[in-house]
């Protein structure tokens, strides 16, 4: 779960990381007032989760009231790589001599957090990582001990940060690690961390991604996350329902349980000449009402011409799935889109018996089910 820049900055500032003066604005007038308050030059920054905001026109530096109005007007309401901009952060423009990258993330391969510092801040750090990996100093943290003070210093000096600011940069890194640790961070980053001509360090951007599985113990961040939720209507609906859902461009709706099996179903739709409309994983142990919600979601997608429902039960029980399908479909006078169901595994046979074959097409293998759904979709398109 990713916070918006303005939210992450607030969290960082509360923890003692120096940040520029800033105000959030949702209208052009608010933005102009904020700019006047802060004093020029200010940056006006679109609050959306998009990489390369600056290049895409989502960040503008302005020197006057007129420019501020013009920039706010251009950015608010714009469509940035598919995301609607409804908020801007109006922020003091910091005069810097250097830009660093400072961040903490989980290194999956090692099973350990890693603290990273680079003097090549201010640009896309993934590009730096690929093109010049040695430009990023990395320090793995022992999750049993947490970050030792020496480790913050070590990675800062290994990165080649100037001695004059090394202590302050190490202190920012220490705070970021603490936030990562206390707040169940996935990635916690400042890029760029600006160094001014009088050796002050200021976090000019702020990234805070939280482990979605840990939100139950981070109520404050969970609330921020709700505010930060983005995406189209269906994706927001999926969030509400608690589904793993990704909308794609095809016309075969796909519902299944387990990421691997759902991905495999997508792959098979493609393999048999169809186009997947979505990825929708109902998760383990899905009960009847979740199944009904999943069908509701896929039916709501206008692009969908047919649906393949592929459940292989372990925790998920076939009889409950079947009940959910029946319940969901019985609400319709006419089934909106043909549904192919394939159940296997725990209580699959009971499920098969429960399924109302007047409402759904039942298939017994994955391959057959996918092919039938692809055929249905092709018939509709034809």
């Amino acid at each position: 779960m990713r916070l918006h820049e303005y939210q992450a900055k607030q969290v960082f500032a509360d923890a003692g990381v120096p940040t520029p003066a800033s105000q959030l604005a949702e209208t052009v007038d608010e933005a102009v007032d904020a700019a006047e308050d802060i004093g020029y030059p200010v940056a006006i920054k679109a609050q959306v989760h998009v990489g390369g905001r600056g290049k895409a026109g989502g960040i503008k530096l302005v020197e006057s009231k007129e420019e501020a109005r013009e920039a706010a007007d251009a950015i608010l309401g714009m469509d940035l790589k598919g995301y609607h901009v409804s908020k801007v952060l109006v922020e003091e423009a910091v005069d810097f001599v250097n830009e660093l990258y400072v961040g903490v993330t989980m290194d999956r391969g090692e099973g350990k957090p890693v603290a990273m510092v680079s003097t090549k801040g201010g640009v896309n750090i993934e590009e730096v990582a690929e093109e010049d990996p040695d430009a990023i100093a990395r320090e793995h943290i022992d999750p049993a001990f947490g970050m030792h003070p020496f480790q913050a210093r070590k990675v800062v000096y290994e990165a080649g940060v100037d001695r004059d600011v090394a202590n302050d940069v190490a202190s920012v890194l220490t705070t970021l690690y603490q936030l990562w640790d206390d707040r169940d961070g996935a990635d916690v980053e400042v890029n760029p961390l600006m160094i001014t001509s009088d050796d002050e360090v200021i976090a000019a951007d702020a990234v805070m991604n939280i482990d979605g599985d840990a939100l139950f113990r981070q109520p404050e961040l969970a609330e921020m996350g709700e505010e930060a939720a983005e995406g189209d209507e269906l994706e927001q609906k999926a969030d509400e329902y608690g589904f793993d859902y990704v909308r794609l461009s095809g016309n075969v709706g796909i519902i299944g349980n387990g990421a691997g099996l759902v991905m495999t179903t997508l792959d098979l739709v493609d393999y048999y000449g169809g186009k997947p409309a979505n990825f929708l994983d109902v998760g383990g142990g899905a009960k009847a009402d979740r199944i009904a919600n999943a069908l509701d979601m896929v039916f709501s997608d206008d692009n969908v011409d047919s649906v393949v429902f592929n459940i292989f039960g372990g925790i998920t029980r076939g009889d409950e799935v079947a009940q959910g399908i029946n319940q969901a479909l019985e609400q319709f006078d006419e089934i909106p889109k043909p549904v192919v169901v394939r159940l296997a595994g725990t209580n699959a046979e009971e499920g098969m018996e429960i399924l109302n074959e007047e409402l759904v097409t039942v298939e017994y293998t994955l391959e057959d089910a996918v092919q039938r759904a692809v055929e249905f979709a092709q018939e509709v398109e034809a």
Partner: protein
Amino acid sequence: MSVLVDEDTRVVVQGITGGEGKFHTEQMLEYGTNVVAGAVPGRGGQEVAGVPVYDTVQQAAREEDANASVVFVPPAFAADACFEAMDAKGIDLVVAITEGVPTQDMARVYRKLQETDTYLVGPNCPGLITPGVAKLGILPGNIFSSGNVGLVSRSGTLTYQVVDNLTERGLGQSTAIGIGGDPIIGTDFIDALELFEADPDTHAVAMCGEIGGEDEEEAARYIGEHMDTPVAGFIAGRTAPPGKRMGHAGAIVSGSGTGTAESKISALEDNGVPVGDTPEEVADHIEDLL
């Protein structure tokens, strides 16, 4: 023979009094698994499905000679349950079914795991099964059959699919291990492959991976360098668009060179592992390899 689970496996179920814990304990018992105890703090002295419950895993292990644990406790308490099982004298296999365990919790569990001889399978996994002998977890027993194909998979339900295809054409399994798709897991592909390589009764291994991470690439190199037992592979997520997160944390395409389906498939093929386009084709490959 088999790996990790055999006739001598004696299971304690952590969280046996919960809904899923109870349901799957019954399922495990029905399959023939030697479930000898449950462990739930404050519930000692009770019985679930005829199985005695203890307050701690240590008591359960001591009183009932349990040597394996299956964890069904909710995500907030799952890491502590794993620590408890790893700590208990006598327990050398822990199977964590729980989905949604915070990653930082698992990083700590994983850190401790490195200091022990315990095998931890999972979390967020279906468990493992030695067909005809015992299952530890939530796998649907009826689809498995006894034989000499080892199976290791990051995805629960995909495992079932592949097993179904194997069983249908008479290719039984020695042991099937669902290692789970979380960012940090206990037993990984290489650990499982090592076990299968050492098992004389496993004659071929089916390995099911998916996009994200580099575990499949590393496993491919391991197979090329260390394995005589033939392996066939499957990789889910070929059609996943880059940068999109597909379900659990493992299944994300980073967009860079590694972690994609292509990268994994070619790493496997470069190391002599045939990769199926469909689950059905994995069974074809296994048939050829035996």
